[in-house]
Each structure stands twice: as C-alpha cells, then as structure tokens.
C-alpha cells in the first residue's frame, strides 16, 4: 500500500475502565472501532490528535493507528495489535468481543 493510501484513526485507553476507545466524527470517544473517524491524511489526523490529547481526564496515551476502510467504509485495523485491541485476547472470549460494546464513553 502506497503512502497516499494510508488511513488513520485516533485511539487511546479510557482513564477509568482502561479499555480501548476511538475518536468519532463528532469529536467524542467511542468504544467501537467501526464508529471511529477515518482520517485519510496524516496532517489532519495529527492536528486532531493534538486536540484529543488535551483531554487527559478522559483517556490515557492517545496515538494514531493505521486503519483501512472496510465494509461500508467503516474503519478496520491494519495491524494485528490493533485487531486485538478491537476485539480482545485470543485465549479467552473476553474484552470487547464479549461485551455489548455500545456502552458510551
């Protein structure tokens, strides 16, 4: 994949729950990667990250994660690490794969 085709999401961990969260289109956080805002250029993603990074009372350690548009243009993880954050561990059916992840942040 060439650099131009790179897509990004902004992700972090929730301060109290500790679980993975993503920035959505309205600038709030969501527990579902599928609802995250997909950035198609790095500069605007970086700018949004800087804004998001100020909300230290909500989350810990925001960063850009590579993603790709999947079904219905919803973001899907690029990296196996991000795949695991999105679903949960592979040894037990725990984490996001096991919970109704529409709990709002």
């Amino acid at each position, binding site marked *: 994949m060439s650099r131009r085709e790179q897509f990004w999401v902004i992700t972090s961990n929730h301060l109290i729950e500790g679980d993975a969260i993503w920035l959505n289109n309205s600038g709030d956080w969501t527990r579902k990667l599928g609802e995250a805002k997909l950035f198609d250029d790095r500069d605007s993603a970086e700018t949004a990250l800087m804004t998001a990074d100020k909300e230290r009372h909500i989350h810990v*350690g925001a960063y850009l994660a590579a993603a790709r548009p999947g079904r219905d243009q919803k973001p899907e993880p690029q990296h196996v*690490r991000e795949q695991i954050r999105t679903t949960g561990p592979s040894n037990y059916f725990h984490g996001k794969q096991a919970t109704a992840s529409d709990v709002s942040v």
Partner: protein
Amino acid sequence: MYQYNDFDQAFVRGRVKEFRGQVERRLSGALTEEEFKPLRLKNGLYLQLHAYMLRVAIPYGTLDSRQMRRLADIAERWDKGYGHFTTRQNVQFNWPRLADVPDILDALADVSMHAIQTSGNCIRNVTADHFAAAADDEIEDPRQTAELLRQWSTDHPEFQYLPRKFKIAVTGSQNDRAVTRAHDIGIRALQDSDGRHGYEILIGGGLGRTPMLGQVVRSFLPKEHLLPYIEAILRVYNLYGRRDNKYKARIKILLHETGLTLLQNQIETEFQACQSRFSGIDSELRQHIEQAFAPPSFVAVPHDQFDIRMTGDSAFSEWFKTNTAKHRDNHHAILTISLKPVGGTPGDATSSQMRVIADLAEQFGYNEIRISHEQNIILPHLPLGHLPQVYDRLRDAQLETANVGLLSDIIACPGMDYCALATARSIPVAQEISQRFDTLRLERKIGPIKIKISGCINACGHHHVGDIGILGLDRAGVENYQITLGGDASEKARIGKRAGPGFSFDDLIPALERLLEAYLELRLMPEETFGDCHRRLGSEPFQRALYPADVQQAA
C-alpha cells in the same frame, strides 16, 4: 511462614490509603498522567491493551491457603475469575478498573499481601527458590534473606527512582532454581571452610535487549554484611547508572561500561562508608525472621494407598514421577501442580482451582503454597500417604497435568494478547505447541526440555535461557518468531544463540517439529536431553533441520 507484625500491617494499609489518594488526585487533575504513572507502577498497576493490569507480589513465592483464597475472591469479584502467575513470582489480574484498585489493595492488605514495587524503576519483588525449606540440597532457606531484603528495600527513600527496574533473586542451594545469574543482583547462600554462613554476590545479570549473565562481585560476603553491601551496590548504581537511554540503564550496562574491577572498588568503598550504620541489624531482626521460616515438623502418614496406586495406576505413577521432586524428609514429596494443561494458557488458574489448591495445602500440606518462576504452583511439603487423595482432587479440578519439566511445561509471557509492550502473541504459540506435540504423542519420548516464549525483546518469557527460546517480533505489522537454541537457566546458566531468520506464526510449529525430530535422530540415547545433545553438537545440525534447503526455496 513470616507473619506481618503491627508495623508491616500499618505500613501496607498506609500505602493503600496513599494510593487511594493518588488515584483521586489523578482524577481531579492534581497529578498529571506523567506524574501518576510511576506512582501507579510502584503499586503494581499497568495500563495494558484492553484494561489495567494489577500485579500482586507473592514475596519469595510463598503464600498460605488464606492468601490463595483471597486471590480467588479478588479474581471473582473484580476480575474475570482467574489469575495469571508470572515468572517473577507475582500474580496478575488482567481486568481491574482504576477506581476499584484501592479496594483490591485493601482486600490484599487484609491477608498481609500487597502490590508494592512490583513494577517501576525500583527494587522489585525479591524472588527465591520455590523449593525453599523442602529441597534436600539446601544450605539455608533463601526466604530469610529475601524477607530481610523485602523490608530493607520497601519504600527505601533513595531507591524509588532508580535509572531502571532492579531485580534481586536468592538461592539457598547450589542447584540454582531461581535463575540468579539473570538478575541485577543474584545472591547465593554458601558456607565457607570454617562453616560460616555467607553469600556469593553476583551483579549485572539480565535478559532483555542485551542479555548478560551476572558476574561475581564478591565471592564470600559474611551474612551480617548483606544489607550494607547491597545498599552500596544500589547507591553506586543510582549515582552512576545511565539515565540517557532506557535501553542502557540497567546495572548490567554500567558493569559492562565501567568494568568489573572499577565497579567492585566503588562498591567496596561505599560499603566501608555505610557499613557501620547496619552494625546491629543482623542479630535480633534476623533471628526473628529466621524463626519465622522454620520448617514445619514433618509428620509421616501411612502410605499403603500410595504404594498401591504407584503399582496399579499408571496415570498416578506417571504424574508422581513427573511432577514431584525429592523432599528432605523421606516420607514427603514436593509437588509441582502444573498450570500448563494442553491447549491452556501457561500460568493461569481459575478462582475455583485456586480454592482447590488452598484446600489441599490446608488439609494435607502444612498450609504452605509456593509459586515458581516457571509459572506453576508448588505444594512443598506433602506426606506421601496423602498423595492419592491430592491427585484425585487435582484431577477433578483439571490440575493433574503430568508435564513438569517436559515440552508443554512452557514459560510464556502474556504477549500481545494483553501486554502493551509486546510485539507478537505468546500464548497462542504455547497453546499450539502443546496441542501439536500432544497429537504427535512425542512429549515423553523427547523428555526434559525447556521451551520459553517472549512476546517482545524485553524477554519476560526468559527465551534466552530456554533450551529452545522463541522471541516474537513485529515485522511490518505481522508477527514473526525467532528461535534461539542452547540457553540454560540453571547454575550452568547460558544465553541461547539465535538460530537464524524468523518464522511466521504458521511456519513456526512445523519448524519446531523438524527441530525436535532432528533431536530424536541426533541423540546418542534416550537419556541424552535436548540440552546435553545441543552442548555436544552445537547449533549447526539443529539449524539444518530448521532451515532445510527445500523449505528455504519455498519461502
């Protein structure tokens, strides 16, 4: 067992209260995340991929039934019904909420437990031989030394913000079951020719990015000089250890860059300067601690049932031969309960399993339980006559896996399924290895072998000192596994060497199969272990099995 006195109890409670305040201050904004992070780490709290993770100390790997039951309760109430036992004799809970952690710490304090200094750049939970006071090859119980060090190092005002983490391990036996040469400080109890008790002190061991074995810095340290000498090492390290690069911040790098002789001189000078402050400690306090670790008076139990099962029940006798070690009392055995069932997660125990183990220890085993760095649970003192009952109850709890020291008794770190630092998964690799070789029915034929898996360069899975080490790395977003050969964690410690290019997740198990089939071909006789065979032949014939010409072309 060491019982908390009023001071211990008050101290641990005080720490919980302090941490409760720190959590509140983090939530209020008085503490930034940068400031909070080292504080939570000093209380064992990490932030991992899916949740916080709380690492609870099991000092020198020793606990009793009441404490084990409390771990089971915590797992049920605040976690997902299981705990993960680690290579540092800790137990980790993978799913706590930040706001619940102070309550968990209070629940631990109720049973004289804590999570203090299980992480962060400080002196970590001191580990010791898990067979302490039970093995017949022991010079002295290493736990008395470890407990003294626990007290000295806990909240030591100078050493809470070291250049990097600092790990100490103690063995009381010539047979090193505590991997002392892979620690920042390794302590080996010994007796000199006059019968005086003392220690051999090693420094600068460590695995991780730059694996090194510890070197002897003092060949005989009289017992009463332990604390000033260890304090001298730490002070020199805290003053001169590198802080410009976290990968060069461990004492092993200071040793490497300074040279043993010069560093030794600095430590000796500091030791002379601070020795007088410790002049009186090692009599009264030490006596108190020594008494606390006096072994129970062993009571023999009639063992007719045991004898019958040994001859008539092959599953029982196989389990006995594989999972027990010789106890210093002929009527007892040391039992290792394997936390490595085929296809399971190495080191995990459910709450109900923890309770079964607690019950067995209480009913049959003098109320003593140990955690080994190999991620198993030990009942150190079991009368032979009780073993049939113990076996049956373990079997009911699916804890009877007879594989200690064998291929599926794998050390594996949590890897990328949980750990924020990991670059690849470890647990599924361990699961697949145990399943594959179970299908092949090769485990017993292969015999004693240590497979150790780390999911990143930090080497929590000790891969450098496995007969076969597996290191999971990230290659452009894809997991890739390197194999090292010839490592050894014992008193003959040796760092394994990388065999060659890494394997994909799917190619790894077939490669290991070729490697172990080659060993079966190469060994002179069944008694020649994989380690012995590798020592005799070197890596070359094994590399040929790992990288046959046709496989390379296909890749």
